[in-house]
């Protein structure tokens, strides 16, 4: 069971890659850590398969080992 590391970070998975974030990191922080502007429209987030509404990004904290997916519209059939 993954837990908080000694340096105060936790390990999560963000868009398929391991990512160390602050223990009190929010979804909004992860969006920014992935290089996106959290205020950009057209982005959505799921944590462990559940969609987190934009209005809750700044207040939704992450637990160790959670999977965060940050998506945007792209070209497709």
């Amino acid at each position, binding site marked *: 069971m993954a837990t908080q590391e000694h340096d105060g970070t936790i390990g999560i998975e963000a*868009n*398929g890659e391991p990512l160390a974030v602050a223990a009190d990191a929010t979804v909004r922080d992860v969006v920014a850590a*992935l*290089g*996106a502007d959290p205020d*950009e*429209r*057209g*982005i*959505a*987030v*799921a944590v462990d*398969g*559940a*969609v987190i*509404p*934009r209005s809750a990004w700044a207040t939704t904290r992450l637990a160790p080992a959670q999977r965060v*997916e*940050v*998506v*945007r*519209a*792209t*070209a*497709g*059939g």
Partner: protein
Amino acid sequence: MPRPAADPAPWAVAGGELRSRLILGSGGFADLATFGAALEAAGSDLVTVAMRRIDQAPPGLLDAIHAGGARVLPNTAGCYSADDAITTARLAREALETDWLKLEVIADPVTLLPDPEGTLAAARVLAGEGFRVFAYTSDDPVLGRRLEEAGCAAVMPLGSPIGSGLGILNPHAISLLREAVAVPVVLDAGLGTASDAALALELGCDAVLAATAISRSADPPRMAAAFRHAVEAGHLAAGAGRVPRRRHAQASTPTAGLPDLKPGDGA
């Protein structure tokens, strides 16, 4: 007698109205500029998009779509289960602020054929959550009816497998599906060239969705213009009523008044 309108009346779908009967898929274009030129030539007011991780999805597409005066129809392309499609749909609604959704639940990567069970299961859930579901489906009239009963806003039968360019392999099934449902029918997948789109409209489809046929043609804006004319031609032809097929010839020129041109007997 008034001429048929060059700019046809809008058609109703999913609680909205569209002018164009050509829905443009945004996949497969070489770059955004080519896509933008094709969108302008197509005259489409609805464009499909997919949802992908942000590192694989450079920004700019939505601006190009909106600059072209179109709205977006997010899809669930790449989903192989109802659950994945449902979550993707929810992400799309959150990201794009539309409840319109092209539902795709694919059975396997070789055929890319729709999974009927997964599609129907996902359609029921999503319609219950208020999505306006455009369901990608096989050309089965019974499945089309089940999708309509599940609350879909439109059914989108394939003409042939995605990206195959084989055209409409079973026109009879498409016309039966057209008769089987009251919701709009949008021919999706497999179109190869403009005449395939015209046939779809002649068979009674309300619109077509074209992606590969336009984006991977040698000249996408030119092919987009061809599709634009094709859907208008097909729609006009469908409304005009084709002549019945006959086994033997029937002259269109009257025989009455035919002059006697036999040579005379005299010198």
